[in-house]
């Protein structure tokens, strides 16, 4: 477990050195400043020569905040994909992983450490910047989302889902491929969610099912909708309940069942990544058959030969894949006679 924390800490320190993260933080600062300036103008707007009533200011602020948050969710998704995709792939490509794995560090610990570090960074960034925006919007317009904590948690989970997907892909694919697939998956899920909302408006079961399926495939859009529900004013909820739902108007928050599903989804994808990491970067001709694996050894590394020991009968499925593997060699030729080579 200690090794996992060492890697998590390394991941966090590493992020602070990445230019991508510097640019992200700087741009987030600029966007927050511009957003707040924009919100500070809202109470001074006029409609038909009359200043806006406090109710209208709140409604305008809520609409603008949802737009800003939509953009933030997109930026968060992109950043998560591009920050998580190199976490394993780039280590394997550059040789950093080879140097680390020589230590008493399991591949699964390297993966888990990376995941913990990335999720922590996402949580701090997403919760931090949204808290600043919410407080400043409240200060300038008096509008505060009704469930600040739920909104922030939903955005963090949305980011965590995408980074988990990117991390899992990066155990098998190159950095850029893993990042691009994750971003496309995010976009597709969002479109699926929009289609689902249309399906509900037009009472078309098939189209609304698309939305449901996408929410289960990759829960990013599902969590975005949970965030919208926490941010939107009550009047939106009422409008959405009358069939006017869209990607910015949601009639109900996520059910406990869906939240539990998201937790299971995250665990399952981390589990898949765990399995993939066992042989990530191991040459295919060096992999050993699964049946020869034992508990205290890592899959993918050299294994003791169990053939001939009591209770171990190699089955047909565990035939060595490579003709030069030990069992194949011992079956066809005698072991090298070192003594005879002395001439």
């Amino acid at each position, binding site marked *: 477990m*200690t*090794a996992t924390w*060492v890697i998590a800490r*390394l991941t966090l320190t*590493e992020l602070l*050195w990445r230019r991508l993260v510097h640019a992200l933080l700087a741009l987030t600062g600029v966007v927050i400043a511009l957003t707040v300036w924009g919100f500070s103008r809202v109470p001074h707007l006029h409609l038909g020569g009359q200043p806006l009533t406090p109710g209208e200011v709140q409604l305008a602020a809520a609409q603008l905040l949802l737009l800003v948050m939509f953009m933030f969710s997109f930026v968060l998704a992109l950043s998560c994909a591009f920050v998580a995709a190199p976490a394993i792939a780039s280590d394997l490509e*550059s*040789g*950093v992983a*080879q*140097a*680390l794995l*020589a*230590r*008493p*560090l*399991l591949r699964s610990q390297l993966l888990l450490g990376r995941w913990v570090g990335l999720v922590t960074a996402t949580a701090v960034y997403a919760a931090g910047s949204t808290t600043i925006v919410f407080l400043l919007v409240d200060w300038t317009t008096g509008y505060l989302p009704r469930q600040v904590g739920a909104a922030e948690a939903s955005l963090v989970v949305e980011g965590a889902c995408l980074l988990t997907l990117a991390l899992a892909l990066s155990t098998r694919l190159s950095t850029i491929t893993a990042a691009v697939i994750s971003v496309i998956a995010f976009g597709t899920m969002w479109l699926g969610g929009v289609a689902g909302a249309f399906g509900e408006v037009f009472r078309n079961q098939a189209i609304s099912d698309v939305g449901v399926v996408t929410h289960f495939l990759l829960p990013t859009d599902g969590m975005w909708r949970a965030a919208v529900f926490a941010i939107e004013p009550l009047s939106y909820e009422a409008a959405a309940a009358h069939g006017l739902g869209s990607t910015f108007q949601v009639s109900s928050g996520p059910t406990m069942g869906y939240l539990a599903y998201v937790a299971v989804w995250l665990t399952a994808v981390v589990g898949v990544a765990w399995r993939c990491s066992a042989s990530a970067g191991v*040459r295919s*001709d*060096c992999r050993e058959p699964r049946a020869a694996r*034992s508990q*205290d*050894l*890592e899959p993918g*590394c*050299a*294994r*003791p*030969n169990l053939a001939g020991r009591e209770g171990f009968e190699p089955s047909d499925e565990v035939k060595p894949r*490579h003709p*030069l*593997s*030990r069992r194949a*060699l011992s079956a066809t030729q005698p072991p*090298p006679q*070192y003594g005879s*080579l*002395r*001439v």
Partner: protein
Amino acid sequence: MGEEPREGCHSRGLTRVHPVATAVLGLPLGSLGARRKIGYLPELFRYQGWLSAQEVLRLHCALAGIARSLQPTAIRRALATVGLADRASGRVDTFSKGMQQRLGLAVALLGDPQLVLLDEPTSALDPVGRHDVREILRDLRAQGVTVFLNSHLLSEVEQVCDRAAIVDRGQVVAEGRLSDLLGRPRVRIHCSGLSADALLLLGDRAPFEREGEWLIFNSVPDADIPALVSAIVAAGGLIHAVEPGARPLEERFLELVGKH
């Protein structure tokens, strides 16, 4: 793998070698326990460029489970051993390949490993660096550490290794003490003035190969060299040089893998 200090392995294509040992240092291959006792320098590796040499070593100390209180001493010692003491706080991405190689060696030596596996440790080093690495290897040997060296530089293997194994296409084709591996002693004699008849007679006495004016006798024991020299002189030959010694490992290697 033996417990006694043993050095040296040359392989062709190490990645294709399949494990024939089931345990290392009495522990299962690949287990965390075994890895705690092993120092490893991969052939292709990179350390995080944004870390300093000291921070890289601190990270590896933490991963190796070295107690926090012992880390500063371990790091200082490792850096001093590889000659990087004055660059401890330098960032890795400002290091030359040779310096990174030295840092790699320092990482492999952390935590007093009982077995050190080095894959091409001198590939990026200048002659001074190679000399330093040889000295480090000899020091480790003196401390009773087993060093397993994988190298394509056969002259280097000859200089530092007690034992060597030659691997061809995933199979060990020869293994043993270097002197046994190199086999027959040989002597090279630079001589002139021998007639063709004299050379024929000499060939009957002890077979040889010619390389210009050099005669290479491949199976002459050291004790027979004076008699051989006397015979050449008696036949009218002028001796310029006599070089006894084993054949280069490279020649033996080519012979073993069937390229000679």
